[in-house]
């Protein structure tokens, strides 16, 4: 699965289970989940930017991105002990409340983070060589995007503003204000821009969540063993960093799910690669593949 965005995987799965069993998550847990998911979005995008830039030959953004990603991983580690493969959510809420001082450290990070994005953008966004390598490369038309079931930043770079955080709001997203960046050319450069803007928005969301963070329990009242009703089924999808990540679960009356199917964004987004590559050079392949932003754990299952 998506090992660079574990928190959003967690969130999609527990969301599906909650929907199936009918649990209502307390508001504090919802807000913390939103914070974790958005931090995860930033860290996933940072990893993407780092590798994408180094593929096109720019070394330095790699180190800048990893510097900030490290801080996010530290926050995760402090919260749940793990840095990469988190297991930080439970059906019905969260396993732990925030550690003392975590809010302040998180606030510190998100308040300085926009300056850092500006630093990456200073190196790349208006760089002539960067633009030469990315503008007009690997154009994905909106029709193709829909045909192939492309989601996430790739879809939004092709001019379709579908974002599940707005379309089917979940957790604390209805309570915060944020924009969904949409660009219309569908090329590598626009996909790059969408992700850069999303990082700004993610930082904004985290700040708002921290401001509004309510007091209260972090776990719903729930039986020790969750049992879904016989022949119940549900599909729950959220907006992961790479696109729509969804879980389809059917219950058979026992504590175990009868069936559990994942809809991974990377797998779907990769399908469109042959279309994107038509008429380009081998050297463009790395640029195109870079902005499809795949994780092979999701592709090869």
């Amino acid at each position, binding site marked *: 699965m998506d090992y660079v965005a574990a928190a959003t995987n967690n969130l999609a799965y527990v969301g599906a289970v909650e929907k199936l069993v009918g649990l209502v998550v307390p508001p504090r847990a919802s807000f913390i989940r939103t914070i974790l998911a958005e931090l995860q979005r930033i860290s996933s995008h940072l990893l993407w930017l780092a590798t994408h830039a180094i593929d*096109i*030959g720019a070394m330095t953004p790699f180190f800048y991105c990893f510097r900030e990603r490290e801080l996010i991983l530290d926050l995760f580690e402090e919260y749940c002990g793990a840095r990469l493969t988190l297991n930080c959510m439970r059906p019905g809420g969260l396993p732990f409340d925030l550690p003392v001082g975590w809010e302040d450290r998180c606030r510190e990070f998100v308040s300085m983070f926009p300056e850092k994005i500006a630093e990456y953008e200073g190196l790349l966004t208006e760089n002539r*060589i960067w633009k030469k*390598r990315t503008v007009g490369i690997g154009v994905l038309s909106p029709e193709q995007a829909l045909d192939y079931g492309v989601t996430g930043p790739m879809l939004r770079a092709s001019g379709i503003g579908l974002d599940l955080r707005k379309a089917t709001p979940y957790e604390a997203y209805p309570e915060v204000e944020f924009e969904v960046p949409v660009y219309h050319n569908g090329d590598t450069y626009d996909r790059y821009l969408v992700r850069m803007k999303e990082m700004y928005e993610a930082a904004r969301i985290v700040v708002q969540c921290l401001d509004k963070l309510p007091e209260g329990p972090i776990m719903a009242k729930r039986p020790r063993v969750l049992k879904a009703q016989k022949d119940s089924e549900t599909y729950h999808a959220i907006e992961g960093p790479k696109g729509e990540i969804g879980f389809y679960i059917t219950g058979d009356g026992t504590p175990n799910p009868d069936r559990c199917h994942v809809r991974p964004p990377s797998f779907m987004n990769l399908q469109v690669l042959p279309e994107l590559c038509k008429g380009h050079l081998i050297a463009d392949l790395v640029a195109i593949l870079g902005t499809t932003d795949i994780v092979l754990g999701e592709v090869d299952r």
Partner: protein
Amino acid sequence: MLQALTESPVFEYVLVPAIKISLLLFAGVLPLITYLVLAERKILGFIQVRLGPNRVGPWGLLQPIADVMKLMVKEDILPERAIKWAFILAPCLVVGPAFVIFAVIPFGPPAAEAGSSFNWFVTDINVGVLFVVAMATIGVYGLLLGGWASNSKFSLLGGLRSAAQMISYEVPQGFAIVGPLILAESMSMVDIVEAQRTAGYWFIFPQFLAFFIYAVAGVAESNRNPFDLPEAESELVAGFHTEYSGMRFALFFLGEYANMIVISAVAVTLFLGGWLRPFPNVEALAFLDFGFLNSPGLVGLLWFSLKIFVFLFVYIWFRGTFPRYRFDQLMDLGWKWLIPLSLFNVFMTGLVKILR
């Protein structure tokens, strides 16, 4: 016997220059290259908010020695299906010419001006610039031959790319050099520097366009970022030296850095006044000659080194900043922009010269 030897032409024309060149290489150029690699890693580290080498010796100062030791004792792999003679010859063809060029580069003033018993360079030939250009071109054979002899697709493609790239960029580079030659009315490297003293300004001022073209073409010539396509690791693994290891790889590496220094040195000589201080005829700046050192030769060498280091720093800075061009874009830039611009520059310089 000894007297007979010192008076023979063999001594004067073979042994003395050979000793001079070896001294220059082993005392000057090779340490400079190894420490240039360290400087590059340190500066890149500084740009990229990390430390760079810091384990071997204080501030990693012994790192180059460790690197050289490592490369020397590493296994020297000769691929089974490689074309052996070409595989062995290729690195020598890259390194040799690059080193030979140092013989004509004026690091400091000639004996008469320096007031010392020897010239502050190995030799001054009357077609020095031509010699530099000719020698630099031989390096292409090395890359091409190395790529072809390795019998591997990545090497071959890398070699072809370097050959195409270097040949395309040699044209604007050659034209860019013509500008200062017209101004100096000489092809001797020493005369060109002297002409800048007579003129009272460095040739970068009347020839800024040529300098710019030379610098860009120079970066491309030495296969450095943002024109490091022959070694684009996301496409070609390591380009022409994919199959090389140990000391043979080190030779390619040496060749690349020697080329960087050569290109900087030629740029400094042609455009930045060689060993001269800034504005060599302005009396108010005479303190820049550091008269108290009482050694014009040494001061000349200092100024020359300083200018070279600025140039090399810019090279490294480029590497920390720019993404890589695509191959066809690189060719576009060379053929559609640099060559017409450099031709225009030659034409304009000639016109001004005639009209004066």
